[in-house]
């Protein structure tokens, strides 16, 4: 009886603690599978990358068969959509090579993330993980970021050394009610 009372008290306390930490109790807890299915944000560490692999050669094929060439041009230069290969690829100043995703992105995961979420136009989300790895590999290869024989997967992709390195400004440490840039311009 005494034990039951203590138990009941503990349950009550537990309920109180839960109620305090979640003020309104509105909303539902998603399952781990639901989160996995929705979570397409691939951070620089690549921890969210799905299993799969792709080669430069497979990517070259997919670039044609998936319609990439239709908008971006057969070589990534002559399409109506943004170019995918630098016209100035030999320039030692990476910033001078142009705003080309597979060159200027500081992490290869950024390239993977964008192809996966945003391509091909009108059929977004239809590429398999293998296909995204392969097209990423191909775009990095045509910009001399990786070698032709490299294979990209969840392990290797985050370690690709991007040409821009750390050669970009760190992000502003934003604080509320603070000028965006002290002393600008008066």
């Amino acid at each position, binding site marked *: 009886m005494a034990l039951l009372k203590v138990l009941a008290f503990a349950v009550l306390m537990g309920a109180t603690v839960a109620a305090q*930490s*979640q*003020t*309104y109790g*509105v*909303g*539902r*807890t*998603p399952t781990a599978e*639901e*989160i996995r299915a*929705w*979570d*397409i*944000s*691939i*951070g*620089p560490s690549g921890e969210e990358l799905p299993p799969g692999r792709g080669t430069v050669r497979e990517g070259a094929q997919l670039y044609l068969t998936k319609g990439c060439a239709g908008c971006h041009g057969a070589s990534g230069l002559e399409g*109506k959509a943004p170019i995918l290969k630098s016209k100035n690829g030999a320039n030692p100043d990476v*910033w001078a090579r142009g705003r080309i*995703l597979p060159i*200027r*992105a*500081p*992490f290869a*995961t*950024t390239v993977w*993330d*964008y192809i996966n*979420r*945003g391509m091909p*136009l*009108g059929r*977004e*989300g239809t590429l398999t993980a293998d296909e995204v790895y392969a097209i990423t590999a191909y775009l990095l290869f045509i910009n001399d970021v990786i070698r032709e024989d490299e294979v990209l997967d969840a392990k290797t992709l985050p370690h690709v050394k991007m040409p*821009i390195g750390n*050669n*970009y*400004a*760190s*992000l*502003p*440490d*934003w*604080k*509320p*009610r*603070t*000028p*965006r*840039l002290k002393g*600008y*311009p*008066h």
Partner: protein
Amino acid sequence: MRSKRPDRRGFLKSGAALAGGLTFGATAPASAQTPASGQAHHSPPMIKEGKDEIAYGDRSKHVTSVRIAHGGRPSPDQWGLTFHIAAPLQDSVGVITPSSLHYIGTTRGSFLPDIDPREHRLMIHGLVDRPLTFTMDELKRLPSVTRIHFIECAGNRSSRRAKNVQETHGMTSCAEWTGVLLSTLLRECGLKSGATWFVAEGSEEVKGASSMPIAKAMDDCIIAYGMNGEAVRPQQGFPLRLMVPGFEGIFHTKWLRRIKIVDRYYMNYNDYGHLDRDPKVAALDYQIGPKSVITFPSGGQQLPGRGFYEISGLAWSGGGAIKLVEVSTDGGKRWNKAEIKGTAQRMAHARFGYMWNWDGQPTELLSRCTDEIGQVQPSRAQIAKYWNRPFDATFSVPGLDNSIQPWRIASDGSVTNGFA
């Protein structure tokens, strides 16, 4: 009896005319019944209202102000994507942009998703104690806020080629937004230590995503379902839009479906677009600086002649509320305090006015504003000096351009872009 009735009608009609120019009853030739007041009893043609107009009203057919494609890329474009659309600020009154005229920006061009709100979910997950998903009905049960905020696209900059204020400044608008504070939802989920950034993601085909500091989330971000008294429009993110008051437009994630709490800048596609070489430029790329523009008289408009005009314009800042607006009617030699209409809200357009008697001489009109944290809108010459660059025709303002816009008044009353 019968002979008296026309007299009574005549009396009623003249009374109405005195009260406000209204007429009722049958219209007779004005000359026959116009009383001593001398006012013509002219009735305008009537608008025949159909069911559609009764259900959801239209503006007058005589009001023809419309949005235009911005920056030379048509919308819809060759793929059917909506890109950048500018609001007709030259016709604006007050501070609220009607939802139908609110500017549109999309991250790379977008097809507008047609979302069934009953199916829509917002998921919050990542570095939280309790990941949660919310239906629209659940979000509407939570404590709400209603606030007026502007949004401005980072590409909103004047150029020598721009003819009018729609082309120079039309990529900003201001609306009343209603929704739940993001901080309310994040407290429900419980932030874990190390939660320093968040990624917001839309439901459109490109799933546009941006990384933002968690300090902003806890300060004033709104998960908005209401806009100008009704549901957020599809072009603005129906059924949910993330409002990030004072930050560049791209952060205001439309068709919001997911917020992920993370421990670092995630460098997804929209973030990559914000990369800069110079930290000073990077600092100018998040929070919008103090900015104002005169909307009347502005480029392409015509003053009928010398005499009185109320100069009118808009001022806003990502740093807070507008504290002061000044107008110069002599090309910047003297600055005069303008009147702010009503109470300026934080991160909202403020309407200002300045009484001006034009003497008919050519001149230049300018406006500049100061916000509540003391930031002052600069001229392009001041910005060029800051960057140690010559101020000539090739000078382009780094980061978001908040420089002073000059409007030139010619002696014939025509108004043109002072940068041209």
